[in-house]
């Protein structure tokens, strides 16, 4: 990675545009975290390109003083793929929401992950359509009442982490919009990972889905209902750090340290780089009240990236081929003289 020519701070990444999200929207905090992460990454500003789709969060690139492309609904993954493959030297970020990425853009989402193109995908999940003023999304919990589901939804939601791992994803992390410290840390990790890095940001829509994550994020319950995973550390949580996760047969189980003979040694240690997705799948699928919700980098496995494989293939074929320009091409194969 190239070094910054001058040391940048998060303020250098603010554009001259007025930020127009609703007061109290979780997006403000995420913007702040991304700006901090980019400054921390130590790269020059011109190396960053952000691509978004359509939705509230997709206005994001306008508020960042980097290269930005505000695309069309659902297609940010495809546009970002083109940007990155064309110029693999860039740090490419996709900004998308639960409707943009998982409904209209679901196809591009899974194929981006399958190809493992080195893009950092920030998925703002507020479980609602905000920009169209409050309809249910593919991540809305079953039974959610919205303007288009006045009697409650009858469909099962996607869990983004499950979808990512199902599409052979190599990096998945989760953070909470108002946790700027964790978000910044996770965004930096996502950027450093080579390949598609998906970060699910649980984000509160103050107007149409307020307090959607209150049950796990209110100050007084947060530590009991969230677990922040860190590579190499035991999976311990709780205000008193007295709870942990163990494997009970083929399932995760929450245990109390000091009860029933359980000691810290019995608690699972997080291994983000485990290629076998079994445990990662269980961790991304933990939901309150049966489990705490997992945050931090849950999965980070190294694998070849599409963009680098393409560069390598081109270099190899160029070295082998006798066709160096168009004139060579036109005279290749079967020709005859008149």
């Amino acid at each position, binding site marked *: 990675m190239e070094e910054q020519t001058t040391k940048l701070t998060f303020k250098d990444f603010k*554009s001259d*545009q007025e930020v127009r999200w609703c007061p109290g929207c979780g997006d403000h905090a995420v913007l702040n975290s991304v700006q901090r992460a980019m400054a921390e990454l130590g790269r*020059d*500003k*011109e*190396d*960053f*390109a952000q*691509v*978004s789709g*359509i939705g509230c969060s997709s206005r994001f*690139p*306008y508020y960042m*003083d*980097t*290269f*930005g*492309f*505000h*695309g*069309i609904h659902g*297609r940010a*993954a*495809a*546009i*970002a*793929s*083109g*940007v*990155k*493959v*064309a*110029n693999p*030297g*860039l740090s490419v970020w996709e900004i998308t929401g639960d409707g943009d990425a998982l409904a209209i853009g679901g*196809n*591009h989402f899974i*194929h981006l992950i399958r190809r493992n193109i080195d893009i950092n995908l920030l998925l703002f999940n507020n479980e609602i359509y905000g920009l169209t003023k409050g309809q249910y999304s593919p991540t809305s919990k079953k039974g959610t009442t919205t303007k288009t589901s006045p009697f409650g939804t009858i469909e099962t939601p996607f869990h983004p982490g499950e979808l990512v791992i199902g599409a052979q994803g190599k990096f998945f992390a989760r953070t909470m919009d108002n946790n700027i410290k964790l978000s910044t840390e996770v965004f930096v990790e996502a950027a450093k990972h080579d390949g598609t890095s998906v970060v699910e940001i649980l984000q509160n829509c103050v107007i149409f889905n307020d307090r959607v994550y209150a049950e796990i994020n209110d100050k007084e319950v947060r530590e009991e209902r969230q677990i922040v995973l860190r590579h190499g550390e035991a999976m311990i949580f709780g205000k008193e750090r007295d709870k942990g996760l163990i494997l009970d047969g083929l399932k995760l189980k929450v245990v109390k340290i000091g009860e029933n003979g359980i000691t810290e040694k019995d608690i699972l240690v997080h291994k983000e780089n485990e290629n076998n997705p079994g445990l990662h799948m269980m961790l991304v699928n933990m939901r309150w009240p049966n489990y705490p919700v997992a945050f931090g980098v849950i999965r980070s496995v190294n694998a070849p990236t599409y963009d680098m494989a*393409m560069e390598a*293939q*081109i270099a190899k*074929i*160029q070295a*082998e*081929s006798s*066709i*160096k*320009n*168009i*004139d060579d*091409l*036109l*005279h290749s*194969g*079967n*020709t*005859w*003289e*008149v």
Partner: protein
Amino acid sequence: MNNKKEVVELEEVVIRFSGDSGDGMQLTGTLFSTTSALVGNDFSTFPDYPSEIRAPQGTVGGVSGFQVHFGHTKIFTPGDFSDVLVAMNPAALKANKKWMKPGSIVILDRDSFDEKGISKAGYTGDPIKEEKLDKFNIIRAPISTLTKEAVKDMGLDVKTVLRSKNMFALGMVYWLYNRPLNHTEEFIQTKFKKKPAIIEANIRVLKAGYNYGDTIEAMTPSYTVSPAKIEKGTYRNINGNQATAWGLLAAAEKSGLNLFVGSYPITPATVILEELAARKDLGVKSFQAEDEIAGICTTIGASFSGLLGVTSTSGPGLALKSEAIGLAVMAELPIVIVNVQRGGPSTGLPTKTEQADLMQALYGRNGESPVVVMAASTPSNCFDYAFQAAKIALEYMTPVILLTDGFIANGSQPWRVPSMKDYPRIKTRIVAAGADNYKPYARDVETLARNWATPGMKGMEHRVGGLEKDFLKGSVSHDPVNHQKMVDIREEKVERVVQQIPDLEVSGEKEGDLLVIGWGGTFGHLHSAVQEMQDEGKKVSLAHFHHIKPLPGNVKDVMKKFKKIIVCELNMGQFANYLRMKQQEFTYAQFNKVQGLPFTVAELKNEFNNLLED
């Protein structure tokens, strides 16, 4: 092995090879064309095949045909009617009987004309009697039997053996037209390099077919077609899709940019993606996308990053790309969209030709969304028009839609290989590194093209996207007057492309009784029909369009010198209606056909003669 009694000299010949879609008729036709080119004939080909890869054997729906028209004069079309029909089964005869010249030669595989074959094709008795072909020169050759006989000592299985029976038919036709076998033998040797038994079998069968012709020479005299008088140079055989791909590559070279292609396979455009994917040696980044939309969106992303972005598709795919084309219009990024038109609507006739996507190309988007629309007209000039399309896109910072069609995309002809030194440099709008105060929507005063800065360029950070932009700064603007201004300037920019494009040419006299107008892939048939009528002393000329939006600057001057105008297209009159809108003072007659087939010269002449007599 030549021992002929009678050899007749001919000007031009049309041969149609036809059989089951697994019979290898496309290859047989291609090999015959290549040999004809190598002995100095000009030619034009027309592959005509079903959309099923292996349709039910022996049925009319499964017949695959390949027509080649060769001669010692310049050849503009694959020909209306055949002088020789090769029918590998009764269904092939049934499917093609209406395209045979009266009294022409028909070569049949007698072995396939058994009870089963006859009934599968829908005949009740002897097809020759049913079709009243007694005045035709019918050669009933036991092709399957003699193919087996030729290789019986080789110990090959029957399936493998019968797969080479197309070579028997080809050998017979080579005898008939006095063609050498060596080019085809060389081809077989290269293609089956690793399978010596297959090489030997194919060559044995090819020779057996030739010798069979020689042995039963009583059947017919043999013919020769002497070399055409064509310009000196290096030639190669090229089809429209290959020429399109190569023209785009040429534009990448002349602009100093790498080429990115984002496409999804679709008949009949897939070969463009295949050709480009094969050109990693020229630095092509090819991306087989998950769908048509991702195809164009990756292309737009690559263009934002500073590559020459292209996407190739056919009608249904163009429909899927509509929204993204609008995005490229708004972001003013240079991309080329190649639409190889096929029969529509919906899935329509995937393997057949049509020109019914013109209005979709011009107007098939939300909002006022102007793009440059142009069309190639022959297999080989796809190279030049693809080059032009990319040049205009890059110099005007606009999406360009290049229309070709299944007929010219699959059709092939000999092509005098050009030299890249004869092609102009393409000057992109990429701004100089280190330039101060970059404004993404600042424009060139002549072309109105905006400046292009790409991610990675220091100090040029900016945002583009689908929301309306401020006239100067490029930031989001919902200002009503600004929107009007931006709509106006996007339209004006596309109209200014007229400065770049050549005047409309007239083939024939500049004034007369009838001006025939066409566009795109119908050129060959229109040109042949008009030329034949001119030879008959009629005052008919042709004006063939390659540029549709904008139209060439001299259209009015051309049209006003003719008493009547007729617009001929393979659709219901889309270009005629466009002209009615753009050039309102003229009256346009129409000749339209939507059968998934090209025009025939005969039907065109008939129509023009009727109009002249009115």
